[in-house]
Every structure is written in C-alpha cells, then in structure tokens.
C-alpha cells in the first residue's frame, strides 16, 4: 500500500505439547499474540484458549491441534508479533513459552521451550511442596524486554517443548516489501 502499511497474515496450528504428562491428567493451553505499538489486528483473534486434553498413557503427546489465525497490519517492523503460550495442567501452571513469528514467509515448524517461575522466598518453597505454583500476573512481560529488573524471580526451564506449525503467508501487499525481508 502506498502509505507504507503492510499486512502480515499468520496462520497455522499449535500441534502438540510434549511434556512428561502422567495418565489421567488434563491439560490445556492459552495463547496470545503480542505485538508492538504500531501493530493492529485486522482479522482473527488476538488470544484464545484450547480444549482440555486428557492423557491416556504416561508421557504421550498432548495433541491440541489448535488453529491460530490472525492478520495484522503495521507500518514498522519494530514490535514484530510474538506468540505467547501458557500451558496448564488442570488449574496449575506448567509453563510459559514465547517465540517470534518467523520473519521469512513460508512454512515453519517451531519448538518452543517452556519455563515456569520458581518461588523466591522460603515460605514459597515450603508451599510449593503442597502444589503451590507461582504465576505471572502479566505473562506479556515475557514478550517484552521490560521486567528484566526482577532478579528475585527465577524461571525453571524444563525440557518441555511444544511444536507448532506456523504457516506464514505473505499477502500481495507485502510483495513490494519482500525485498527487505530477504
């Protein structure tokens, strides 16, 4: 478009969560797209919630197959969209994860590593023995460079990965812009 606006169309699905899930547990996932100040969503939904998946066998994949589809417009690459996911087992947080939407058009398969916060106080450590799990009030802070001052907050990264097929289609409007991309 003439005024420097470009459109980005993101579509794909959140395929599965690969965690050490025990049989009988129920998992679900929350996702949201986080983007910068210039970005506007012109189609699709910004955030959503998956169904609840029950695990039948220990350690099997938690297949959600949750479709993601969003169309955004912006004038500036700064604040390129990020996907932020939160994984829950019943109502307990099991991990946050984030990734940038790939900048190159095409089909991408992304593994996101998940992290969960640890308690920083002794009292918190004791309560965590009883299943207490700290959560972030604003998980969006993971997608920003802010919040790096909170030294007391630790994240334990587990080897839990999630695979997401990200289908990334460039609109016709974007083609004039493609020379910048690659």
């Amino acid at each position, binding site marked *: 478009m003439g005024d420097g606006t470009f459109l980005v169309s993101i579509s794909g699905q959140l395929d599965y969560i690969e965690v050490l899930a025990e049989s009988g547990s129920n998992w679900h996932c929350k996702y949201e797209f986080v983007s910068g100040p210039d970005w506007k969503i012109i189609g699709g939904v910004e955030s959503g919630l998956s169904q609840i998946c029950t695990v039948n066998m220990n350690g099997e994949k938690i297949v959600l197959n949750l479709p993601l589809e969003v169309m955004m417009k912006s004038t500036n690459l700064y604040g390129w969209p990020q996907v932020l996911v939160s994984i829950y087992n019943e109502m307990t947080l099991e991990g946050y994860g984030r990734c940038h939407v790939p900048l190159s058009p095409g089909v991408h398969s992304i593994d996101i590593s998940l992290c969960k916060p*640890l308690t920083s106080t002794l009292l918190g450590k004791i309560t965590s023995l009883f299943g207490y799990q700290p959560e972030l009030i604003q998980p969006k802070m993971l997608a920003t460079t802010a919040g790096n001052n909170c*030294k007391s907050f630790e994240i334990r990264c587990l080897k839990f990965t999630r695979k997401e097929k990200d289908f990334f289609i460039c609109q016709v409007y974007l083609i004039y812009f493609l020379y910048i991309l*690659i």
Partner: protein
Amino acid sequence: MAEVHIIGELSQSKDFGQQHLFCKWYLQIGNNWRLLSGKKEGQTQVSSNEFEDICKWSYPLDIHLATSGLQGWPKIYIQVFHLDWVGRSHLYGYGVVTIPTHPGQHELDCYTWRPVGNLRERFVQYFMGGGPQLKDPHLILSTTDRYKLNTEAMGVVTFKITVVLRHFSDFGVEY
C-alpha cells in the same frame, strides 16, 4: 537514513557447568548509528534446567536502528552471571557477537570467556566463589589491550536473530 531491524531472541546458554544463570546484554553501535526504538541493554531472567547443562532464556530482542554509515556496525556484548543459593551473583563469562551484515535468519554462537586469577585467587574462588572481573567492560570489545589478560573458556550463548535491512540499496550498499 538506512535502517536495520534486529529481531530475535537470546535463546540459551550451554556448557557453563552450572544452572541458575542470567545474562546481561548491551548493544554497541558506532557514532553514525541511532537507536530508533527498542532497548540498548537488558537482562534476562535467571534460568535453570533439571535435565541437561543448558539454560533456556528465550529472551526477546527487538531493536530498530538507523544509520548514516556502515562504520560501527552493531555488536552485542554480554556478561553471563551465576546466581548462587545465597543470592550472590558471580561472573561466568564475557562475550561479544557481531550482528550479521547479511539480512535473513541467523543462529549465532557466542563463545564466552572469563578472567582467571593466580593460584591463590583460584583457590579462594573454588571455595568462596567470586573471581576477577573486568573493571572496564569495554575490554570485551577492544582489540588492543587483550594481551594483558589471562582467561579461561566458559560456555556458549546462542542467539537466534533475524536481520532486516531497509533503504540500503538507496545508498549503493550491496548485500
């Protein structure tokens, strides 16, 4: 003015032999360069891993720069610290990476090092932690004063970065 976008993440560290690591990063740019949006420095969260010698940060980077010359192409220099169980942070590595001049996706490995002291200092460091640190972090970037240093190898910090260049061809810069 030509513009550069650096979008990606400070992804992980490995082979540091310790968990509970965090990383401070700083962007170093030349005089011709101007930061349009984004941050020039930052710090990741403290991360640990139960399974392997890898700390995953997945810390987002999004920097928008404008330049009127190629001199002083952006570099990111990092300091890795280990947070011990009493809450002290010890230096675990210095490193620098040059942002690729070629647009596209890149996975950059930053091999880090740290200064070592003499035998007595190393003895103290083994039991008490701590260790020598650089007074002036610009030595991480300097090419001249390195010969005075005695260092040891530490782990590897991985960046996943996409570089996008804009208006460079208008100034006759080929890439």
